[in-house]
């Protein structure tokens, strides 16, 4: 018993550094970012009694005296001007006019003692929409505002989720573009990687070593260096254009830089190993006599490929695609250096919010959207591969 216990302790001791590392550098930042994305900057904290009073309001009937009294109480007790300021900004972004209204109200409430009729202070307190904004802001310490904004949505004053006008935000469009670029890269990786892996699996000895090294080599070079190399290669007077021109295939240089073609070329090169390696490992595990067997049974090589080799290697193609796609949707440097303004992917928006405007809430929310998309993909893959192994 004590020996088993000791063993378990020793085992735990061995994995403890890894666990600690994971918690510190993976779980904790993840949780922080996620809570940043959904936590409310202050409405709930600044107006606790109002929050309670509004919780059973139907959000359409005229404001009651209890609600007014609670708000007055909250504004008096909350001395933290920073908090009030945050609150005002938040409310103002939901309903314009709050800035002046709050300033006026706070001043009056603090000057006077006892009950205050807010409508006397400002007519606008009769307006339901201001109360709706407060109700929405104080409903819970969490908010879905960032998450909704990440997918171009917002809550209306009455609390329904509505789409933002196209001019107000472009996150969905960028998200969609991200998926399109990632899908394009994945497709290009399959088209190049599958035949490559097939050849690599069919040769032996040094030829195979060379082929695998050629794929692996880019992995040992920094991403930045590789992207910079493509930057040089894809220029108007870069190697590729000059080669094509020398060969007489084109008259004027192709535009390969600062557009999507360039982005997909560079990303395909960078991500190709993640496609080739899984396919290769599946292919070399396929018994070598299956294709001869198919031929002996009367299958033309193309049919043998279609009926035997392809179904058996599909697992490698799917896992390779998943790896490439998931890596691709997070790409930042390559589109930033090689793409044009319409080729920026969601990571650049995240970077903009995180480092440009210090809006950690939005950065976190977009991150969550990306994470959810990735996890959804993984679940689909898992289902597919589970049913695949069941069948095999």
């Amino acid at each position: 018993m004590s020996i088993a216990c000791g063993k378990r302790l020793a085992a735990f001791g061995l994995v403890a550094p890894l666990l600690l590392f994971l918690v510190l550098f993976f779980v904790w930042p993840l949780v922080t970012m996620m809570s940043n994305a959904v936590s409310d900057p202050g409405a709930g904290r600044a107006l606790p009694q109002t929050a309670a009073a509004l919780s059973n309001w139907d959000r359409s009937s005229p404001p009651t005296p209890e609600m007014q009294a609670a708000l007055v109480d909250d504004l008096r007790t909350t001395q933290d001007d920073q908090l009030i300021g945050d609150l005002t900004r938040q409310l103002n972004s939901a309903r314009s006019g709050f800035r002046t209204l709050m300033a006026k109200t706070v001043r009056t409430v603090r000057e006077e003692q006892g009950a205050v009729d807010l409508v006397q202070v400002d007519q606008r307190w009769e307006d339901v929409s201001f109360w709706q904004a407060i109700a929405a802001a104080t409903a819970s310490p969490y908010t879905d505002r960032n998450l909704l904004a990440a997918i171009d949505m917002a809550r209306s004053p009455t609390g329904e989720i509505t789409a933002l006008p196209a001019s107000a935000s472009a996150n969905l469009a960028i998200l969609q573009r991200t998926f399109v670029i990632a899908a394009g890269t994945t497709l290009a990786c399959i088209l190049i990687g599958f035949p490559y892996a097939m050849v690599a699996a069919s040769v032996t000895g040094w030829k195979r070593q060379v082929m695998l090294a050629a794929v692996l080599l880019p992995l040992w070079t920094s991403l930045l260096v590789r992207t910079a190399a493509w930057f040089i290669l894809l220029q108007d007077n870069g190697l590729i254009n000059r080669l094509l021109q020398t060969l007489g295939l084109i008259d004027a240089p192709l535009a390969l830089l600062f557009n999507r073609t360039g982005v997909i070329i560079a990303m395909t090169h960078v991500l190709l190993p993640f496609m080739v390696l899984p396919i290769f490992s599946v292919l070399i595990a396929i018994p070598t006599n299956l294709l001869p067997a198919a031929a002996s049974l009367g299958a033309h090589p193309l049919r043998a490929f279609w009926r035997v080799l392809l179904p058996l290697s599909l697992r490698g193609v799917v896992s390779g695609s998943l790896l490439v796609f998931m890596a691709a949707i997070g790409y930042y440097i390559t589109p930033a250096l090689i793409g044009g303004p319409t080729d920026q992917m969601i990571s650049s928006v995240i970077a903009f919010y995180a480092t440009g405007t210090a809006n950690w809430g939005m950065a976190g929310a977009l991150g969550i959207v990306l994470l959810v998309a990735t996890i959804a993909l993984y679940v689909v893959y898992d289902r597919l591969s589970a049913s695949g192994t069941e069948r095999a």
Partner: protein
Amino acid sequence: MTQPYIRFDKVTKAYGDFTVVEDLYLDIAKGEFVSLLGPSGSGKTTLLMMLAGFEPPTRGAVIVDEKRIDQLPPHRRNMGVVFQSYALFPHMTVAANVAFPLEMRGVPKADRKQLVDRALDMVQLGAMADRKPSQLSGGQQQRVALARALVFEPAVVLMDEPLGALDKQLREQMQLDIRDLHKRLGLTIIFVTHDQSEALTMSDRIAVFNKGRIEQIGTPNEIYDHPTTRFVADFIGETNLLDGTIETSDASGLTLSLPGGKRIRVAAGSNEAAGKTVTVSLRPEKIRLGADAGPSSSSGNSIPATILDSVYHGDHLRMVLDAEGTRLIAKADRRFGDLQPGSKAVASFDPADCWLVRS
């Protein structure tokens, strides 16, 4: 033999410097059952692969039905192949595996089902039609491979140790089934095996391979009773190989002097010259053991022997004898069970049972 259906004409196969099959001639008639027998690595699989079209011969021609088939791709050769390692398609069910050749030949779906069922019944796997190969035992997989290679009734069936993974009972059953099928459909079968008794019971002819060459080809009877080389005699069944010097030779055979000094008569090799060293094969079951030389002692050979070892084999006893300096193995009837190691006996055998082999 009638016009050969399949002919290997001076075929050589080499991988780089390594010659696997060398200058091989082999004629096979239509409807014949030929076994290829030989030690591991002797080139049997290579021969099949050249016939099926997976390995091109380095030199020589493979001719089927009077046409060279070098240019014919494997999928158009119409030969059923049972691979040494089954080669079942792991992603297809047993039924789909067996239906594959029919599908490739455009057999309508409705007929396919019927043919597949019949083929699976033949190998007693009707109940497993919906399983994946990975859910079958080795022997069951082997039977699926067999069904798959036979279902489209190819003119030629190449089998690379198709029964290797089966237990004795099933093996014998399948041997009978294959024989039966061979007769019924008039199939030409080339059957690779390690098991000499399988080769002896099933084949019309046996080709004994050694190091990429055919040492001897002939009916089972010829191969067993009249092996031409030392290798064949030793490889097929158990035998005593006696080296001796010819003392005299005459019309009825020759007299041989064994290393221990004992002389024996051999009813063969009358044209061999005296003084030459030759090897004689003597099957253990041809040796009679007795307390004395026995009734035919006048014409036969008899050597006094000491029993060194006696092993019980159920239907017989396998004796190791020291016959005046020559080690002999004899198969004795069970009534000699009282002959204990150390006791004396006389080993006698007919000159006609001594067969001269080349070394």
